[in-house]
Each structure stands twice: as structure tokens, then as C-alpha cells.
């Protein structure tokens, strides 16, 4: 499938990580994003590898696996790889496509280039991660 | 009115000494006397008034005393509309400020304020030892010794009400070429001169406003952008009175406002040259001026107290204080007046308690009660309340209580629930209630939210845990009849109103 920039921007605007991002920032991200197709069982990212991309699932599904154990299932609108993109450290888990799966991929170097001149983008990432931390700590205190 | 000894309180032994005869010292001493707590009041000045004997230069205060208010003059509720009178219990000691105003403004002039403070001292027949300069402090076992120009005072407790009054100019090359705000001369002597004012807070803008029609050019500079009170929705920021220079700047009227640090001042022939370094991406500039004035604020004149163990912090070197204004690091040392800014309170949405008279006069009265109870065994009565009256009483206080209105997010009315039912704990520092322990209870105060809308905020303590209950605002700030407030408070106090 091939999406227009506007379609990509619309998809990105629904991702919690980019919620509240101004239209101009979304447009710029959409222009940088590439589409990646994965077949059933293909690795989207592999545990231990240094990450160079952030993926947003457009269609299909994926499972998050660490040390052979399935940790989570992801679907359209979910994202993965956001930590490795920011700190360029090895991935903490592998993610495999479940059935044919399409993702929007943002390369870390493209994202880093945007960060310099786009404080709103950094702000939305910070907010997105704060939300993740909050969910984690709620999960653990209940 | 009894005769007042011209030089009371000779050096010697006292349970408590209050230092300072500005509004803070006068109020705390008056309130202590009402409670029967023996103490000495000493002051370096030769008359009451503290900073109001000199400031503000341009002769009008920023704090109103409204001659016509929705409530009767002299009532407790009127204190909300009269920010300047000290608070007395006797009818003749109340609402003195409006008696001393000539009707041209709701803001008293400096001499009118000074006259009010002196009149309060006179009517209350408050003994003060003037001309007695506190010079040094030391410990003697668990007591303190104040060395003064008159001799030594030994005491168990001290209240320092010495203001935040010591002029401060930051270190910079050429500092000796820079005058301080306190050195400001008569306005006409600035006629046709180019001024460079360091500092963009109220004192900087007060100078700029006062000299606007005298100076030929005014540059205001400091590293941080100016904030306006009408934008911060609080007393923090430049007050509406002083925004004229900002308007002139936008109209190109010879006023310039820079976000820049001052790297140094040097003499260049007959003029001064100020080197500035932009902090906002603007240009670095060397600016010529005939006069450079530092409106860079004041520090607390604490002398040797830090060496004795009083922790200080921040640009004004304020002593860190507990919610009851005791030094957070040295027990037995208390503070009253403007210096109370060292106990900023919860700072919700960044708003601290005010250090101005309209707020600190109430702090001083609470401090007197706290000292009387903790150190002198004088316990104030706590009237019982009928359980069915508690919610109405809290909403009444939110509507009218001057302490709550003048110290938003800082002072609160507390009702506690004892074995015999609810009773009125009085006005307390909000922080002491929410962080302290004690019986179940509720405290109500007023708070501006992030949009500046004023709302009552209740805090309910059950088994030591405190929860926040924000009530709805009212367009006319009339919370008495609020059905929402009544319902929410009743629900929050479920099980306690017995």
C-alpha cells in the first residue's frame, strides 16, 4: 500500500506519542516517514540490535518477545522502538509481524534532525514517555 | 491611653525579644501583648514604620485601602479591602489607614502609610525601644544573646522582623560606577539624562515610570524577560501601575527593554558604557548612559545569623522557615514581616504567600498565637461548632475571611474533629495543616488556578492522609450559597460531621 503524506500525517496524529503535535510538525514527520512491509513472522526489530528506527503499525499486528516469552501484542496505531531511537542503545525486545503488516518507519537520524529545530516534537515525545512511565508505575502499584 | 516610657526595655534578660519596628515587628508585638506574652521590642530606627519611612520613592504604595467597600469599615471583612492598616482587636485600633488618606487615590502615599503605622503604635500604647541597633548574636547554652548598641539582651526566643532591606548590587566589573535604587535622587535631577536601569522587576519599572518624563532615554536590562502581574494572575510580576514604560517601548518613545546580562560598566570620557550580553538570542551591545542604576533588589539583613546556623537560600538570602516561620535549621529563631517570604507555602501554580503587609500582618498574629501556645502555655480558645454548621461556616469563610483572601493558597480556616465533635482551630498556615499530623479535620482556603480564576480549595485530613477538594468558582466570588460547594464539602466530610 502507498499512503499520501496527508494520510501519514493523519495516522501519526492518532499515535499517543505524537498527540497534540502542531500540524506543521506532523507534516514534516510524515514527509520523513517511509513505509515498510513485513510478512508473517518477519522480525520488525531484534532484541540486542542497536535501534535506528521508530515504527508505527499502520495495518496488521505484531508480537513483542523477550527471551522467548511473549510480552505484548500490538496493533494499528501502536508504536515501537521509541527508546532506541532516542538513546541509540540496543533493543530490549524483539518484535515480529503477525500476518502481513505495514508500518511507518522513522529513521533515528531523520528524527534527530527534526529535534533541533522542532521543540514541539521533543515536547510531545517527552509527554508520550511520561505517559508510559505513569502507566508502568500504576501497573506496579496495583 | 497610658504614658509610654520613652526608652523601655533596657538591656537584660527577657523570655523573648522582637527586633524591628516596621509593620511586622509592630504587629507581632501587639499580638503578643494581647496574649500576655512578656517580651522586649527593640529597633535601630528612631520612629515606627520600617521601610515605609523611606520607600517607595515615588510616594505611592502598590497596595490599596478602599474607602468604599462592600462591607463596613472596621469590620473583619473590611480587612480584605484595606491592605495597609495593621490589625487591632479594639474598635479604635481597626481600619486606621482610611482616616489618613486625602481621597485622591485608593493607594495611600508613603507618608500616609507611615502616619498610619505611627498612629497604630500610639493608640495601642506599644512600648518600643528605639535607637537600639542589633549588632551581633551568639548562643549561651540554650539561650540567645543579642549584642546591641545599648548592651546585651539575653533571651530564649527571638523574632526578627528586620525586613528584606539591605540594598544588593550583583558583582560585576565597574560596580562602583553603579548607583543602587536606594540612592535615587529627586526626579528633576535626571532631566535630559540617559538612564540605564539594571533589573526588570517592580523597583526597576517603578524608577522607569517615575523618571519617564525626565530622562531623555531609558534602557531597562536584565537576563530574564519581564513578567506582568496581569499575565501571571498574581502579585508576582510588574504591577499594572508600572507598565507605562512598556507601552512607550512599543511606541518607540525612547524606552528600550533588553533581555541581557550585564557584563560590566566602564567610564568612557564623560559617560558610562555598559556592556550587555543577550540571553535571548539578541545582539551583544555596548550601551552609553549618563547614569546606571541597579534596581537589583534587596537581601535580608541577617548579619551573623547564618554563621549561627540559620540556613538561607535564593537571591534575597532569605532564611528558610517552617510553616510557622521558625528558622528551619535553628530552633527558637522566628521571623515576621516581609522576611516571611522564606516560607513560601505550597506554591500551587507557582504562587507563593505574599511578603506584603496585607498578608504578613495575619502571619504575625498567627505567629504570636503559636509562640504563646508552644512556649508560654497560653492556649487560645477553640470554640465548639455544631456539626450541621460546619459546611456553612467553611463557605462563609471562603466568601469573607480577609486572611484567606489576602494570603491565597497560604492561610486557611481549619475545623478539627475531636472526641466531643467539631471545633474551630482558627486560621492556620495551610502547609502546616496539609503536611502536619493531628486529628481528622478540614481546612479551607482560596486559590488562583492556572488561569487565574479564584476557587475555594478544601483539604480533608483523615487518619493522617490529606486529600484536596477543589470547589467551583463563582463569577462574583460568592461561595456562601453555592450548592455545589455545599454538596462537595458534605460528601468530603462524610462520617466526620457527627
Amino acid at each position, binding site marked *: 500500500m502507498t499512503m499520501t503524506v496527508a494520510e501519514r500525517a493523519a495516522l501519526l496524529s492518532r499515535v499517543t506519542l505524537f498527540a497534540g503535535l502542531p500540524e506543521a510538525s506532523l507534516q514534516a514527520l510524515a514527509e520523513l516517514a517511509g513505509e515498510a512491509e513485513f510478512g508473517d513472522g518477519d522480525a520488525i526489530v531484534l532484541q540486542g540490535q542497536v535501534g535506528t528506527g521508530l515504527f508505527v503499525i499502520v495495518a496488521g499486528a505484531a508480537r513483542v518477545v*523477550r527471551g522467548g516469552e511473549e510480552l505484548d501484542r500490538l496493533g494499528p496505531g501502536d508504536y515501537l522502538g521509541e*527508546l532506541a531511537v532516542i*538513546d541509540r542503545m540496543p533493543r530490549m*525486545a524483539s518484535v515480529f509481524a503477525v500476518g502481513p503488516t505495514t508500518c511507518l518507519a522513522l529513521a533515528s537520524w531523520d528524527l534527530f534532525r527534526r*529535534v533541533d529545530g522542532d*521543540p514541539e516534537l*521533543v*515536547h510531545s515525545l*517527552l*509527554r508520550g*514517555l*511520561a*505517559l508510559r*512511565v*505513569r502507566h*508502568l*508505575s*500504576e*501497573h*506496579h*502499584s496495583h | 491611653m497610658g504614658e509610654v516610657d520613652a526608652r523601655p526595655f533596657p538591656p537584660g534578660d527577657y523570655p523573648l525579644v522582637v527586633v524591628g519596628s516596621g509593620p511586622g515587628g509592630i504587629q507581632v508585638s501587639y499580638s503578643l501583648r494581647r496574649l500576655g506574652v512578656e517580651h522586649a521590642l527593640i529597633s535601630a530606627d528612631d520612629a515606627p514604620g520600617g521601610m515605609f519611612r523611606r520607600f517607595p520613592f515615588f510616594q505611592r504604595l502598590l497596595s490599596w485601602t478602599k474607602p468604599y467597600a462592600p462591607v463596613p469599615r472596621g469590620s473583619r471583612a473590611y480587612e480584605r479591602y484595606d491592605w495597609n492598616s495593621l490589625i487591632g482587636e479594639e474598635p479604635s485600633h481597626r481600619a486606621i489607614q482610611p482616616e489618613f488618606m486625602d481621597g485622591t487615590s485608593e493607594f495611600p502615599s508613603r507618608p500616609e502609610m507611615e502616619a498610619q503605622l505611627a498612629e497604630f503604635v500610639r493608640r495601642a500604647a506599644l512600648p518600643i525601644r528605639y535607637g537600639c541597633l542589633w549588632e551581633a548574636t551568639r548562643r549561651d547554652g540554650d539561650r540567645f544573646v543579642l549584642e546591641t548598641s545599648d548592651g546585651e539582651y539575653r533571651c530564649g526566643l527571638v523574632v526578627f522582623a528586620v525586613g528584606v532591606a539591605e540594598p*544588593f548590587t*550583583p*558583582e560585576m566589573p565597574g560596580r562602583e560606577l553603579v548607583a543602587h535604587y536606594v540612592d535615587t535622587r529627586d526626579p528633576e535631577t535626571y532631566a535630559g539624562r540617559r538612564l540605564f536601569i539594571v*533589573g526588570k522587576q517592580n523597583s526597576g519599572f517603578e524608577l522607569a515610570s517615575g523618571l519617564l518624563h525626565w530622562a531623555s532615554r531609558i534602557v531597562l536590562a*536584565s*537576563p*530574564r524577560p519581564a513578567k506582568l502581574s496581569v499575565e501571571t494572575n498574581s502579585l508576582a510580576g510588574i504591577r499594572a501601575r508600572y507598565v507605562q514604560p512598556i507601552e512607550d517601548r512599543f511606541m518607540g518613545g525612547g524606552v528600550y527593554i533588553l*533581555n541581557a*546580562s550585564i557584563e560590566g560598566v566602564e567610564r568612557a570620557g564623560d559617560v558610562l558604557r555598559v556592556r550587555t*550580553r543577550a*540571553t*535571548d538570542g539578541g545582539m551583544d551591545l555596548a550601551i552609553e548612559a549618563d547614569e546606571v542604576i541597579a534596581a*537589583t*533588589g534587596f*537581601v535580608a539583613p541577617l548579619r551573623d545569623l547564618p554563621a549561627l546556623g540559620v*540556613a*538561607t*537560600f*535564593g*537571591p534575597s*538570602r532569605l532564611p*528558610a522557615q*517552617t510553616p510557622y516561620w521558625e528558622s*528551619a*535549621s535553628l530552633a527558637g529563631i522566628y521571623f515576621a514581616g516581609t522576611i516571611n517570604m*522564606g516560607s*513560601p507555602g505550597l*506554591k*500551587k*501554580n*507557582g*504562587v507563593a504567600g505574599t511578603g506584603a503587609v496585607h498578608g504578613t500582618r495575619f502571619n504575625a498574629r498567627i505567629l504570636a498565637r503559636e509562640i504563646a501556645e508552644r512556649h508560654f502555655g497560653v492556649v487560645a480558645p477553640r470554640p465548639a461548632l455544631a456539626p450541621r454548621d460546619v459546611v456553612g461556616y467553611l463557605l462563609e469563610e471562603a466568601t469573607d475571611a480577609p486572611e484567606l483572601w489576602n494570603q491565597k493558597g497560604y492561610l486557611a480556616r481549619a475545623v478539627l474533629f475531636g472526641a466531643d465533635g467539631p471545633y474551630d482551630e482558627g486560621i492556620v498556615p495551610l502547609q502546616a495543616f*496539609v*503536611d502536619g499530623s493531628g486529628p481528622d479535620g478540614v481546612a479551607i482556603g482560596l*486559590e488562583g*488556578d*492556572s488561569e487565574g480564576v479564584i476557587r475555594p480549595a478544601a483539604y480533608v485530613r483523615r487518619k493522617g492522609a490529606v*486529600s*484536596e477538594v477543589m470547589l467551583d468558582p463563582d463569577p462574583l466570588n460568592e461561595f456562601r450559597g453555592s450548592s455545589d460547594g455545599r454538596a462537595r464539602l458534605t460528601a468530603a466530610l462524610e462520617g466526620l460531621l457527627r
Partner: protein
Amino acid sequence: MAGTEELIDELSDLALFADLARPELAGVAHTLEEEWYADGQRILREGFSGTGFYILLEGEVAVRIEGQERARLRRGAFFGEAAILLGEPPGADVVAAGRVRVVHVAGPALHEFLMRHPNVMFRMLQEQTRRLRSANRWAR
């Protein structure tokens, strides 16, 4: 403004401000408000609205949820931003463990502060990432 030079020096030592040149740091130092806490005083209060963003300059703080200590933070650590970014009250108390000195940005001023200093924000993002990684290690 006493002591601002000292504050600038202190800030320049913190990782959070490592990317800022002196003039920008001076602007930051004048924007931040300094606060001092005695042992046991609460800095953030679980469930209270209107909180701020704090950077720890001196001392240690304990992060407590329902009275139980969950973490300790030391010099250079920051806290309080999540509640402001999410528009929710803090999920934990932060309590001074011994004497503590912090600098503070009021909640309503945080967005502007971050927009003005994107490098500081990016450092915060990296730290947040590190926190998530260590949380994830024992989570999913």
C-alpha cells in the same frame, strides 16, 4: 539577584544543562526559583493539583507512594514534569531526606521554559528513556 553567578556555576555542572552556553544559562538561572527544604518536608504531594517542576541541587529526596519509599533521587535529578505534561496530579510524594535545595519552575510556566530551551528538554527526554529502560527491565 545575589548569588546568581554561583547558581549559574552550579547549573553548568548538571547534565541537564550541559549543552547550554553561559548567556543562555544565565537566562535559565534567572528564570528558576530557588527553594530550601528541611528533612521530612514534602516537595511534591500525591494527588494535589498545581504542582511544579524541580531540579535537585543539594541533598537527597525520597519518592513515596502511599507512604512507601519507591526511589531515591540525588543531585542533578529532576521531578514533577510528568504531572505537568500530563495535566494530572503527581502519583507520588517527593519528600526531603535531610536538607534539600532545589530550583523550581511553576507548572504554568513549564511549557514556555521547555520551548525556550529545547536542548534541556532533549536531555530530559534522554533521561526519561533511561528511566523507562530500567523500568522495562523488570516489567514487560
